[in-house]
């Protein structure tokens, strides 16, 4: 397990990066610092209040099953992406 000191260090990295992002952005997507191994970097901001809604999950799975779980159809979005899936 990670030591409390290490967790606090990771948290400090994050707080520092997010504080920098908050100061440096004006509602646009912005890359604020070069990514470095072992560091946390805030990369995007959203300036509007996020409306959330709780819905029933559209996917279900049994973590020990030998079959794929059921999943609903995927819908297109006309907006820009919040996150990307790319080959790894």
């Amino acid at each position: 397990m990670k030591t409390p000191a290490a967790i606090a260090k990771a948290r400090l990295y994050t707080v520092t990066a997010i504080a920098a992002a908050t100061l440096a952005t004006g509602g646009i997507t912005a890359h604020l610092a070069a990514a470095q191994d072992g560091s946390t970097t805030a990369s995007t901001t959203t300036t509007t209040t996020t409306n959330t809604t709780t819905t029933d999950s559209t996917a279900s799975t049994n973590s020990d099953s030998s079959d794929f779980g059921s999943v609903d159809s995927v819908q297109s979005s006309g907006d820009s992406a919040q996150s990307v899936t790319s080959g790894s």
Partner: protein
Amino acid sequence: MTSVTAPQHARPTSVRFAAIGTTNHVHASDPDALVDAAAIARDHLDELDRAASRFRPDSEVSLLARLAKERRATIYASPILAYYLRQALRVARLTDGLVDPTVGAALIAHGYDRDLADVQSRSAAPGAGEAADIPGWQEIDFDPPTGRLSVPAGTVIDLGASAKAAAADRIAALLAARLPGGFLVNLGGDIAVAGELPEGGWRIGVERADATIAQVVTARGQAFATSSTQKRTWHGGEAHEPVRHHILDPRTGRSAHSPWAQVTCAAASALEANAASTASIILGLQAPEWLRDKGIPARLDHLDGGTTMTPGWPEADR
């Protein structure tokens, strides 16, 4: 860096950080949860790396590989290694062994024997001759209640084809259980969501190897993963195999010869999405039918530029 005065309400909703050999993002619908969410994610990935990295000599996986170099070896796995090994074995069952966690020695023989950046910096991969034997996932003797793990001589466990996706699922669930709001966890392109959904769902871009966005879709509980033959590549050094990639076909011990540049799948978990996308690369032209049989919505991008969708995946609009 240009300083811009931000309005008081401008607050970040995502963080990016490097871990487990890739770039990761955590998105939170509630900005107040972001700092703790990132700390939890980093902590979990650090623990995973210590247990399961092939590239750390002090990991449990490396210890087991050393012990098994000449004869069958047994260890008692830590809870975290046991958890991720169970996920890897489930992926093997889901894919009928096409995605196999015992390919580690074959990957090393194929040239993937260190961090990818170091592998890619070489002019040619070493060991261009015979492919290494792959013991097969069914040769792993694992008792989850005790963690007792026994493998045949020559086995190198590689969790690279499952651990990243399984970690996305696990971290997303941890965040939703501990913190308010909703979360999207993206570990190197393997995406899991949990908790409250943003209005309209999370918007996920399918990114090509050239970093352009091919399509944007919404996640309303589905997980996503993409497998590619174009990104984790290195010089093969042989005329018949000038470029190698990291998706090994366990039937040959070599990079899968696939017609697909990349395959993106939606599934009930990132683990399942990644299992399906990786198996699809290996299956080649059989992949669309296999995906349809499994009920997996998918987008398959052909090397020639064409695109195939399976039922449940929307037509591209750009």
